C-alpha cells in the first residue's frame, strides 16, 4: 500500500530527549534492556561461554532470517523454510551414508544441500512469477510438500550413523568461536553489503516498494524475485546442513515452525510485510532479541508456559518502543 504525504506520523512538536535516544536505537534498546536485566538476574548469563552459546543457538534461524529479509523486502514471504531445513538435512546427510571417504562425500553433501535450496527457491519463484500465484500460497504448498517429502524419503526415521568427523561442521570452533556463529556473521556481513551497496540490493528494495514502477523503470522484476527466493532457499538449506551436523543426523522433523520464528525476527527487526522497508541489521537485532529472551528465561529456569507468555510480551513491547520512537 502506497501511503502518501499526509504524514500524520510527523508530530515533531514534542520531541524530548528520551524519544531522541529511542530514535537512534529502536529495538536495539529493547535488546539492551533485556541483556542488562538478564545479567543482573543470572550470573551465568553474561559469560563468554553463554554469549557464544546464544549466538550458536540463534545462528540456525538467523541465517534463514537473512534470506527471509530479502524475500520480505520484495513484499513476498517464504513459509517453506522450516520444511526445507528438514528436506535438505535428510537428503544431504544421506549422501554421507555412501560408502566413500568423507573427503569425497562431504563436497557432495554440500552440493546436494545447496541444490535442494536452489531448486526450492527456483520453484517458488517460478510459480510466483510465471503463474502469478501469491507467495503465501506457493510457499505454503511447498512447505507441505517438502515436509511430506522429508518424511516419505526417510520413512519418518532419522538418517543417522554418520561419520563422526562430520559433526565438526556444526560443532567445531575456530579461535574459540563456534563455526555456525562465524558462518552467520559472514552471511550477515555479505547480506548487508549486498543490500546496501549493490545494484541487486537496490533492485530488491525497488521491487518491494512498487513492483510495477520497478518494472517500468527497467528492472527485470522476475529475475530479482527469482534470485531472492533462491537466496532464501540456499540459506535455509545451509541452516539445514549446519543443524544436521550439530545433531550428527538428518531429522525429518527438524525445523518445525521455524518459518514463524524467522518471519518474526524479520518483522520485529522493522521490516514491512508490504515490502520495500526493512534492514539486515534490524533482522539481526530481531533474531537476537528472540534468541536472548529464550536463553535468558531458560537460564532462569522459568516455567515453559510462562516463557511463552513472556516472549510474547517482549516482542510486543519491543516493537511498541520502536513505533513510539517514530512519532
Amino acid at each position, binding site marked *: 500500500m502506497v501511503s502518501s504525504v499526509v504524514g500524520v506520523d510527523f508530530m515533531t512538536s514534542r520531541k524530548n530527549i528520551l524519544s531522541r535516544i529511542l530514535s537512534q536505537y529502536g529495538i536495539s534498546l529493547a535488546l539492551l534492556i533485556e541483556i542488562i536485566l538478564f545479567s543482573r538476574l543470572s550470573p551465568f548469563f553474561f559469560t563468554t561461554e553463554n554469549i557464544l552459546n546464544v549466538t550458536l543457538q540463534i545462528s540456525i534461524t538467523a541465517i534463514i532470517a537473512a534470506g527471509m529479509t530479502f524475500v520480505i523486502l520484495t513484499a513476498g514471504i517464504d513459509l517453506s523454510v522450516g520444511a526445507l531445513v528438514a528436506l535438505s538435512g535428510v537428503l544431504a546427510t544421506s549422501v554421507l551414508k555412501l560408502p566413500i571417504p568423507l573427503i569425497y562425500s562431504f563436497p557432495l553433501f554440500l552440493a546436494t544441500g545447496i541444490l535442494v535450496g536452489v531448486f526450492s527457491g527456483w520453484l517458488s519463484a517460478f510459480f510466483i512469477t510465471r503463474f502469478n500465484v501469491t507467495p503465501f500460497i506457493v510457499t505454503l504448498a511447498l512447505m507441505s510438500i517438502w515436509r511430506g517429502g522429508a518424511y516419505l524419503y526417510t520413512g519418518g526415521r*532419522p538418517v543417522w550413523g554418520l561419520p563422526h568427523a562430520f559433526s565438526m561442521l556444526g560443532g567445531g570452533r575456530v579461535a574459540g568461536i563456534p563455526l555456525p556463529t562465524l558462518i552467520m556473521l559472514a552471511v550477515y556481513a555479505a547480506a548487508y553489503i549486498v543490500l546496501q551497496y549493490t545494484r541487486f540490493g537496490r533492485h530488491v528494495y525497488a521491487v518491494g516498494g512498487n513492483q510495477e514502477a520497478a518494472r517500468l523503470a527497467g528492472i527485470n522484476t522476475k529475475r530479482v524475485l527469482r534470485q531472492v527466493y533462491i537466496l532464501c532457499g540456499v540459506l535455509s538449506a545451509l541452516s539445514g546442513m549446519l543443524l544436521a551436523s550439530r545433531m550428527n543426523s538428518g531429522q525429518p522433523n*527438524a*525445523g518445525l515452525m521455524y518459518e514463524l520464528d524467522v518471519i518474526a525476527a524479520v518483522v520485529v527487526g522493522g521490516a514491512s510485510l508490504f515490502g520495500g522497508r526493512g534492514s539486515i541489521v534490524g533482522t539481526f537485532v530481531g533474531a537476537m532479541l528472540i534468541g536472548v529472551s529464550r536463553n535468558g528465561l531458560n537460564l532462569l529456569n522459568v516455567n*515453559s508456559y510462562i516463557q511463552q507468555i513472556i516472549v510474547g510480551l517482549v516482542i510486543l513491547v519491543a516493537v511498541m518502543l520502536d513505533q513510539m520512537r517514530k512519532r
Partner: protein
Amino acid sequence: GKKETRKSSKIIGVTLLTRAHLFYKDLEEGLLSAAARNNYELIITAAEFDLGRQSGQIEDFVARRVDAIIVCPADSRGVGPAIAKANQAKIPVFTADIASQEGEVVCHVASDNIAGGRQAGEYLARTLKGKGNIAIIDQPTLTSVLDRVQGFKDAVALYPDMRIVADVNGEGVRDKAMQVASDILQAHPELNGIFGINDDSALGALDAVQQFKRSGISIVGYDATPPAVDAILKNTALKADVVQYPRRIGETTIQKIREYFSGVPPQKVVPVEVGIVDRDSLSRTQTR
C-alpha cells in the same frame, strides 16, 4: 481357495498420535506386520497432536464403515465423543499406547507412562548414587509426557539429595531439545543428570553435552529407538533408555482385534511390559 484368503478380510482404521516420532513408526510397523499376517487392511492416519483432527479422522472411519478402529488418542478425555460416535455406529474401538477415559473401548493395549518415568528416575538415582542436580527436557503439552514426568519426579523425590534444577520444553524434537539443553548447560555448571522425555529429547541433550564438551552428566532417554541404542552402546553420556516395545504394542493390538473378531472377548486392559535398557543389558541381549 488361496485367492480368497489373499483378499483382505477386514478393514481397520488407525489414527496414530503422530507419525513424526520413531516410537509411533515402530508401533505402526507392529500393526502392519501383524495385520499382514491376518490379512487385515489398515487405513493409517495420524492426528499430529491435534485432537480436532483426530476426531475428524475417526468420523471419517465411521463414514467409511471400517470394521474396527485403533486410536492412539491425542487426549485421553477429549477423544471420548468421537469414540462414542463409533460406538453408535457399532464399530469396535481399540486404543493403543494412550487410554481413553470415555466411550466404549473394547481393549486398551499400552505401557504405563507413569511407570516408565519412575523407572527412568530410579535408574538415574542409582547411577548418581542418590545425589546430584537433574534437568528434564520436557514437552509439557502432552498428557502422556506429563505422566512420564510425574513418574520421574515421584521416583526422584525419594532421594533428598537429588534436586531437579531445570525443567525446560524441548518440544519433543531433537533440534529444539538441543537448543534448550545448551542453555541449561550454561546455567548449571554442576549438572549431573538429564531426563529426556523421548529419544529426540535425550539425543538433543546428548548433542549439546558433546558440543560443550561437558563430562560427568548422565542422560536417560525414553523409547530406545535405534539411534539412542547406538549412542548407549557407544558409551556416550546417554546411559539408559526406557523401552516401551512399541512394535509389541502394535502387534498385540492387532492380536486382540483378531480375538475379538473370532468371538473371544479380550481383556479390557492389556499391559505391555516397560523396561529399562543400558549398555550392560543391551550388550547382553539383542533387544531389537
